[in-house]
């Protein structure tokens, strides 16, 4: 079977090796002749480009609609401010002020204004950059500093995917809205963890999040041998498959520090990615 799939590489805890796994998996699939795109959804701190070194061919701004008030039409009735649950628009002494960074772009104020005095204008929240890298399609989001619209940028990023390709989504860390925006509706989730108490605790949270979104998941244990066997025991007890274990190998850490991809720096680990690919595309 050769059906395109969307696979998110996620983790509760940061720094467990999401980008290490996602870049090597994407590159491995592309080298094996599969049409593949690497999608960096960690838009607050995108790092995949460091390893894939793409030629960026296109960069475009991503905007969200925020209200702009026509002061000639506005009569200061204040209904917009009373409606807005995010304090993004308020009327003070019959003058309407907007706080665009607080706006969720629900469009409620526009609809509710009896004077038709509010329209929406675009606010840039970040950029989407795309190009190619080593036979791969590369695409990343980059959130502007000071913006809080991480989920909006991730949703826009996911709308620009090529449906005919396998998509490897490099997810942001955590378990809340940015990750949900990345994981919602994907075909498969790989949770990367490390076998430590922090890693296991956050794996449990991430697994619960994925299960709530009803996505199939499997685990990749990184830095295997570092901590203890509690992660393995938990996976066994909960019927969560461990697809691969990447050893705690100083060569990997050093290659990572220099921006080298795992399967290039230590080619013997290519077999691990063959194993993961076989399981995913069986």
């Amino acid at each position, binding site marked *: 079977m050769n059906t395109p799939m969307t696979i998110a590489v996620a983790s509760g805890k940061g720094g467990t090796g999401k980008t290490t796994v996602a870049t090597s998996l994407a590159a491995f699939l592309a080298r094996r002749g599969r049409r593949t795109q690497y999608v960096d959804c960690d838009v*607050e*701190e995108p790092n995949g480009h460091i390893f894939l070194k793409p030629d960026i061919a296109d960069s475009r701004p991503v905007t969200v609609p925020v209200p702009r008030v026509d002061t000639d039409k506005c009569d200061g009735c204040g209904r917009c401010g009373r409606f807005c*649950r995010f304090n993004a628009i308020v009327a003070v002494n019959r003058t309407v002020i907007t706080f665009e960074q607080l706006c969720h772009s*629900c469009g409620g104020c526009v609809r509710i204004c009896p004077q038709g005095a509010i329209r929406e204008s675009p606010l840039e929240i970040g950029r989407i950059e795309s190009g190619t890298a080593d036979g791969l399609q590369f695409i990343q989001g980059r959130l502007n500093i000071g913006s*809080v619209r991480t989920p909006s940028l991730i949703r826009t990023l996911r709308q620009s995917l090529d449906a005919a390709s396998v998509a490897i989504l490099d997810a942001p860390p955590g378990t809340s809205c940015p990750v*949900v925006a990345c994981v919602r509706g994907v075909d498969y989730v790989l949770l990367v963890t490390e076998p430590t*108490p922090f890693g296991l605790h956050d794996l449990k949270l991430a697994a619960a999040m994925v299960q709530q979104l009803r996505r199939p998941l499997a685990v990749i244990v990184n830095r295997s041998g570092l901590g203890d066997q509690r992660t393995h025991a938990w996976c066994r007890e909960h019927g969560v498959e461990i697809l691969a274990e990447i050893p705690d190998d100083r060569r990997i850490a050093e290659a990572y520090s220099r921006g080298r991809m795992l399967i290039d720096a230590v080619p013997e680990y290519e077999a691990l990615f063959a194993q993961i690919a076989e399981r995913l595309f069986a």
Partner: protein
Amino acid sequence: MKELIVISGKGGTGKTSIVASFAALASNPVLADCDVDAADLHLVVEPRVRQENPFVGGVKARILPDMCVECGQCRDHCRFDAVIPPDGQNPSFRIDPSACEGCGVCERFCPTEAIVLEDAVNGRWFISDTRFGPMVHAELGIAEENSGKLVSLLRKQARDLAGRQGRNMLLVDGSPGIGCPVIASITGADLALLVTEPTLSGRHDLQRIVELTRHFNVPCAVCINKADINPEMAAQIAAEAAAGSISVLAHIPYDNAVTQAQMAGRSLIEHSDGPASQAIRQLWDRSLAMLNSEDTSANGQ
């Protein structure tokens, strides 16, 4: 009262291990775990919960099936794709709570008033005792939102607690990234300690978190964890920080004792007197000195 927040941009650089060690070194602290998405500090400091509270971050819509005439206007108005139309299993319109942002548009414009907004309990927050002092922390519900609001709430509670108990130091464990929970955790802090690692990713992410602290005018300093994994990169990061007039307070060496301490549920300071432990002691002294100096506002602007 001084507030020190530990953040990193990149995840997994060692924030929580450093905060736990600071907790052991501080004389009179209040702790706050503001990494509400993936809170781990409690695994080391073993809080005994004294007070538990629900966290209501906002509202979520609910459709009353008896009132709904299935006109579909709510779905057309919703910008978040949170309205699920009827399907084979469910005969009526429903709200997907994990997609609903609680804006209230559907409720306001439903022609048959078939939609209600209900308080959304997004998590729980706690005031606890630990062996180092009181701690304010939280559990954000699975796949929940409003983490920025929760962080603001925790910091306010922690500051109030410090005031009531006459404690002079608030230690905050922050979250990775540069988004809403991070912004909520740094605004108005006395010092943001930025923990990085000597990797290209660590360096890249440090640049973005430095920009963020400048954007919000928060004084910052840097420490380089696992510095000996790539000494040239550590030196480069230190040089770039210096060029931006940012103090590098410590180079912490890679030390297995950090993981061992975590496995044992102890702070590194309690567990080991080795090289990383020594470096963190030095980092703490220098952070204190910076917090107590007259001019903590000098962060290179």
